[in-house]
């Protein structure tokens, strides 16, 4: 018996490897496990060169851009000063509204909103295949990041943390076909779930045909999941099809974030 097994040890080994990979494959994507050991091997090896080369390229690119941008800096300065004045005025109005909102919430006895912290992180890697849309960032559980936290830029939401290791975390982008996010239409307050489709489009699902949604409407996070704050911009409506079969309308969303130009992100943790 032992001799029989020893004779076929490579076949047995291959069978075990197949079974192991199939078992891991059958697990839910949202509950990915078993990566810790491989993370511990591969991340310390690949992270420094990826980080260094990205940093060097970005520095060189900014230096190059900075040099050429000097040509138009004067006219841009005038425009920016005007924009700053407008934003300062808007900010004052918003601060007033925020204070009023806080007072009214206290008067009505609403639950206090949790304060959120923004942890800056750099992108050190992307998904090695084109099938999935994920990013690897240089902050992990040691930096206070946890699973499910929102990841955003100044423009809007990027995705959420799929997996957090000690030093790194994996971000599932909203354009990935496995991603789903509760949202609100800012103008009409219609609720739905946004799912990833392609690089440039997401689909808004489960929105009844009676709901008022128009092209150009801004989509924001609903805050239903307490980990992701309410009101982060997701994108804008670019196409609405009401005469589709079924109960729901087909709504296409253009994400606010340009995923091809991501360099740094913020992880929002309560």
């Amino acid at each position, binding site marked *: 018996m032992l001799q029989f097994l020893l004779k076929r040890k490579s076949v047995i080994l291959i069978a075990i490897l197949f079974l192991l990979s199939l078992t891991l494959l059958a697990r839910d994507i949202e509950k990915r496990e078993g*990566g810790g050991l491989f993370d511990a091997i591969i991340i310390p090896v690949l992270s420094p060169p990826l980080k260094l080369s990205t940093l060097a390229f970005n520095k060189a690119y900014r230096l190059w851009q900075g040099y050429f941008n000097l040509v138009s800096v004067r006219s841009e300065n005038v425009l920016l000063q005007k924009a700053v004045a407008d934003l300062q005025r808007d900010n004052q109005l918003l601060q007033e509204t925020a204070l009023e909102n806080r007072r009214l919430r206290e008067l009505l006895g609403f639950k206090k909103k949790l304060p959120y912290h923004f942890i800056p992180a750099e992108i050190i890697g992307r*998904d090695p295949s084109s099938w999935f849309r994920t990013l690897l960032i240089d902050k992990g559980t040691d930096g206070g990041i946890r699973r499910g936290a929102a990841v955003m830029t100044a423009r809007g939401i990027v995705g959420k943390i799929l997996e957090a290791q000690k030093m790194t975390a994996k971000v599932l982008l909203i354009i990935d076909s496995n991603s789903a996010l509760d949202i609100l239409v800012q103008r009409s307050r219609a609720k739905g779930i946004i799912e990833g489709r392609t690089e440039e489009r997401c689909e808004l699902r489960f929105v009844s045909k009676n709901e008022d949604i128009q092209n150009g409407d801004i989509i924001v996070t609903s805050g239903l999941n307490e980990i992701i704050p309410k009101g982060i911009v997701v994108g804008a409506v670019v196409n609405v099809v009401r005469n589709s079969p079924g109960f729901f309308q087909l709504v296409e969303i253009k994400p606010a974030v340009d995923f091809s130009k991501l360099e740094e992100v913020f992880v929002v943790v309560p």
Partner: protein
Amino acid sequence: MRLYLLYVLLGVVFLGVQAHPLLPFAQQGIRPDLVFILVLYLGTRPEIERGSGAVLVSLLGYFCAVFSGGPFGLYAFVYLFFFVSIGLLKTVFVLRSIYLQLLLVVLGSILEGCLLFILCWAFHNNPHMLASFKNIFPKQLAFTVAVAPVILLFLQYITNCWSQNNAINLFRVFSQPSSVKTAAS
């Protein structure tokens, strides 16, 4: 053993290139699967033993999964499947010619795309994978096939250098005086 370490190192380097955030055209879905080309190449090599090679390609698959958003065993399964399949082909055909290896990359990339799609659909029932498949697959395939000759030539060069160096080392051992050889043994 050292040869296997060399291939692990090559796999890690290829993975680093593939997962680099600044890889040109990556955001248009053009991301060549260099590790897959390495797996196919390993499948054709006579010096790679079946059992150890299976462990090696599984390891490369798990390394890929560290960077990927896919299910954890997906790449390990796919790489192992192709390694074993080529192992079976190797018993019938001699796959050392670069033209045959290139043909393997073309056919393998098409089959890899189909297998990834079927596995994701079967295990995770993701109905939107088909849209991604139609959108991404032709671009990824075209780019993988375009870079494959360069990668295969590079791999052949590395393997030749390695075997020559080993031959030199072997020659040195055998050309030493018998007393030294005994001491060395």
